[in-house]
């Protein structure tokens, strides 16, 4: 007995020592951060740049001393444009790699597929792309635009005298959730502005559609008589055949302007921009924005591209989702500094209300309640060099509406993660 006690004490001492050593070793370790963007498959075209941008932002933080005295270690995985694989990779990042936060996803379907994983494991996701709204998860921060931060102001611009005073609208999209939901919201919005159903033409095409002859000729016919504008939610690759057909059939942007929500600088790289010149895009950021913050941002990006010898080299551009990624990483880092820990619950509390001087030149604030950013809306006309001429912008950042007031069912819902609501999709406060 007498001997065993010191033995136990000794074992305990050793255990404690190893544990604290291990703790120290952990303390000297890095903060792991997941990056979940497709680097192969159809979405690679768009998502690769977001991965590069996230890495650049992490580099920048590390270069200025890291976070909480540690370096950030990015863990890059490739979900290969495969939606179920997104969920698997997210699980791997959260359980195996134990990352503090994940920056990732582009398409809504990939976000929907990782959502249950993040909610089950209490992970933290920063989602950087404009989307259809109608969602507000406790575990996601949305740094892209909600419909009222992109689609609705764009339509308001088209209806204004400055934008041509359109009276008739063609809602043209690829057949999936984002265009369908956006157009539902837009139709309700147009009704509220006194536009009849007879003056709205809604058409969808399958994914990868490349034959726009009939649609363009129908649009031309529909446009006879009243000022018409096209609101395009056409996805990715179908855009080139669409704009080509438009130009070839002799429709000019000044007659029937097309405003697109998914055509940005990155998409214009690598296509013949001639047929697109003068058409519009609505975003929260353009590379051509003339602010000192943006100049610094572009310079940083170009230096990063050069240093790492990224493919594309000097032709690489910045765009809206890249800015949103950058804001996301920076805000998360600010929140970690403020919280003094990378613990998800603490960081989540700290992210709400963070403010960051974004490349667009505005102080962008994370809403204290609904996990979305307040963002300015900017409308640009395509130039032949693949950049945009800014023709209109909102007076300042606009608060996001996670649930659209233009859809009867969602108008009742509130997204508010503060007391007493504490809910992303409730009709009544929880407490």
């Amino acid at each position, binding site marked *: 007995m007498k001997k065993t006690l010191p033995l136990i004490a000794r074992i305990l001492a050793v255990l404690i020592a190893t544990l604290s050593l291990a703790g120290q070793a952990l303390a000297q370790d890095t903060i792991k951060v997941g990056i979940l963007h497709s680097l192969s498959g159809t979405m690679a075209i768009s998502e690769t740049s977001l991965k590069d941008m996230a890495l650049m932002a992490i580099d920048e933080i590390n270069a200025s001393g890291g976070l909480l005295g540690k370096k950030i270690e990015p863990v890059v995985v490739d979900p290969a444009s495969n939606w179920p694989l997104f969920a698997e990779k997210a699980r791997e990042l959260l359980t195996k790699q134990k990352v503090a936060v994940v920056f990732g996803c582009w398409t809504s379907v990939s976000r929907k597929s990782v959502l249950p994983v993040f909610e089950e494991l209490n992970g933290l996701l920063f989602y950087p792309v404009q989307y259809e709204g109608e969602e507000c998860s406790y575990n996601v921060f949305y740094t892209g635009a909600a419909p009222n931060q992109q689609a609705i102001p764009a339509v308001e611009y088209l209806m204004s005298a400055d934008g041509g005073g359109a009276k008739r609208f063609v809602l043209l999209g690829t*057949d999936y959730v984002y265009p369908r939901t956006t157009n539902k919201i837009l139709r309700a919005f147009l009704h509220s502005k006194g536009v009849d159903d007879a003056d709205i033409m809604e058409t969808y095409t399958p994914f990868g559609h490349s*034959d726009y002859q009939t649609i363009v*000729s129908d649009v031309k016919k529909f446009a006879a008589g009243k000022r018409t504008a096209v609101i395009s939610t056409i996805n990715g690759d179908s855009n*080139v*055949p669409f704009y080509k057909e438009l130009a070839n*059939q*002799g429709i000019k942007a000044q007659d029937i302007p097309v405003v697109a929500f998914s055509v940005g600088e990155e998409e214009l790289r*690598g296509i013949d921009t001639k047929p697109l010149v003068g058409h519009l895009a609505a975003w929260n950021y353009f590379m051509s924005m003339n602010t000192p913050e943006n100049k610094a941002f572009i310079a940083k990006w170009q230096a990063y591209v050069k240093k790492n010898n990224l493919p*594309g080299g000097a032709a690489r551009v910045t765009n809206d989702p890249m800015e949103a990624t950058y804001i996301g990483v920076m805000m998360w880092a600010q929140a970690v500094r403020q919280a003094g820990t990378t613990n998800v619950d603490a960081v989540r509390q700290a992210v709400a209300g963070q403010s960051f001087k974004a490349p667009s030149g505005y102080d962008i604030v994370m809403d204290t309640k609904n996990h979305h950013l307040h963002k300015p809306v900017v409308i640009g006309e395509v130039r032949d060099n693949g950049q945009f*001429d800014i023709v209109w912008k909102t007076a300042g950042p606009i608060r996001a509406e996670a649930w659209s007031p233009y859809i009867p069912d969602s108008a009742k819902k509130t997204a508010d993660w503060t007391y007493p609501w504490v809910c992303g999709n409730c009709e009544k406060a929880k407490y």
Partner: protein
Amino acid sequence: MIRFAPIFPVLALLGFLSLPSQALASDDAAGGDYQKAVAGLASDNRQTIIESLDAIARLGDPRALPALDALQDRRLKYDAKGRALIVAKDERAAVDAVTGENYAGPLDALSDPPVNNLVRQHISAVLSSLALRSPDPEQRLAAARELADRPVESAREGLGKALAAETDGRVKSLLEQTLAQIDLKSPDKAARLAAIRAIGRSGNSDFLPALRQVADRQNKSDPLNADGEITEAATRAIASLERRDLVVRAARDLFFGASLGSVLLLAALGLAITFGLMGVINMAHGEMLMIGAYVAYVVQEFFSSHFPNYADWYLPAAIPLAFATAAVVGMLLERTIIRHLYGRPLETLLATWGISLCLIQTVRLIFGAQNVEVRNPAWLSGGFEVVRGLTLTYNRIGIIVFVVFVVVLTWLLLNRTPLGLSIRAVTQARSTASAMGIFTSKVDMWTFGLGSGIAGLGGVALTQVGNVGPELGQSYIVDSFMVVVLGGVGKLAGTIFGALGLGFINKFLEPFSGAVLGKIIVLVLVVVFIQKRPQGIFALKGRTAD
């Protein structure tokens, strides 16, 4: 009526003009207005720019043309003092837009006026109303066309005068149409009647909505709507336009169907040989299309860096090169992989699918994952309007012509050459052909090369209608198989009928069902057809059919 000697172009211009003669006589007053208007073009306020444009339209002064051109090309800028400056095309020098003096300051410090679509709309209206006074009938015609598309009410008076002075019949009829569009809302009964008749004659169904409004007796806001004569004339005009519209629409769908069919045919023709004749389930067929497209891209880049003057003619050069490249790749594949798998369809399918992934990744490594830019040459951009409502686009016409060329070439190769004879012999009765002394394995290689080469040609054509990226082939592979199976495996004529048939059905369905449902209906039709007739439209006869 009047023919002007070219020495007096300015006088000629003014002769046509509605321009009040005192504008010339009292140069001071008009000149002041003119200077103010031109200076106002380079403003930081969009409203000022538009007002200045309208002022220039009223003045009708052709001196403003360089400034207007510059504004349209984004070469009109203003300096810190608000002076309007025209920057030269080479962006090295600038002159004052009003006085014509050279500008000495730095060019990169100049600001751009906020031109947007609204401003451009006004610019083209002013430019065409100025061009309407040009002595060149072609220029007048272009201007009249522009005006007919976008009639401006304020131009009514000027148009009337221009019409009175017009000598060219084509321009005249366009001007009449433009006037009619404006007069359709005229409170004067005679003018409105004339407008309705002119529109009825024009055969332009774009006017249908406006005519329907005029014919609407319920509309009490306009007293002339109750007039029997007007409504009767309008109803008659509507009927005639609607009849015409029906014909135009049928012609339109026919052309669209033919062009979609041609695209499908170009995509599928190579497969008709590798899969149809040889029976190789060739999942890498799409990648042969992609290789052809990338060859077009490389040739285009080569032309624009080495022969910039002939940059628009890269396509003819790309055609044989694309054929050769794709054919060589195809023959290499056949020699190294596919020939070991003849008669094992499942393995062939997997192997060729693997090859297709490898090829995609290779191209991605060489050219990057981004799409590359293949420009439409100028002679394949745009289109011409046969009648109102039917625009034939040059790239589509080009593809239809090209597909005829490729089909004829393939047919000649298969039916008029010794190689073609061997190919037919080997694909129809391999052992007999072998017994007759044909080196069958070599013929296999050439056949696969031919099929791949034709796919390469298809790839070149596809660059003119869509994207060029590593995944280009993936989007055509399903359609290609559908065409070949539908047409009847082993028959070239079947592939042609299959492709054109699918094109026509698609395009005739689309106006009624929409693109998404249309595609589904077509797929269902194909499935039902194949159920009823598994051998496709054209069946092989005799013992080869099994």
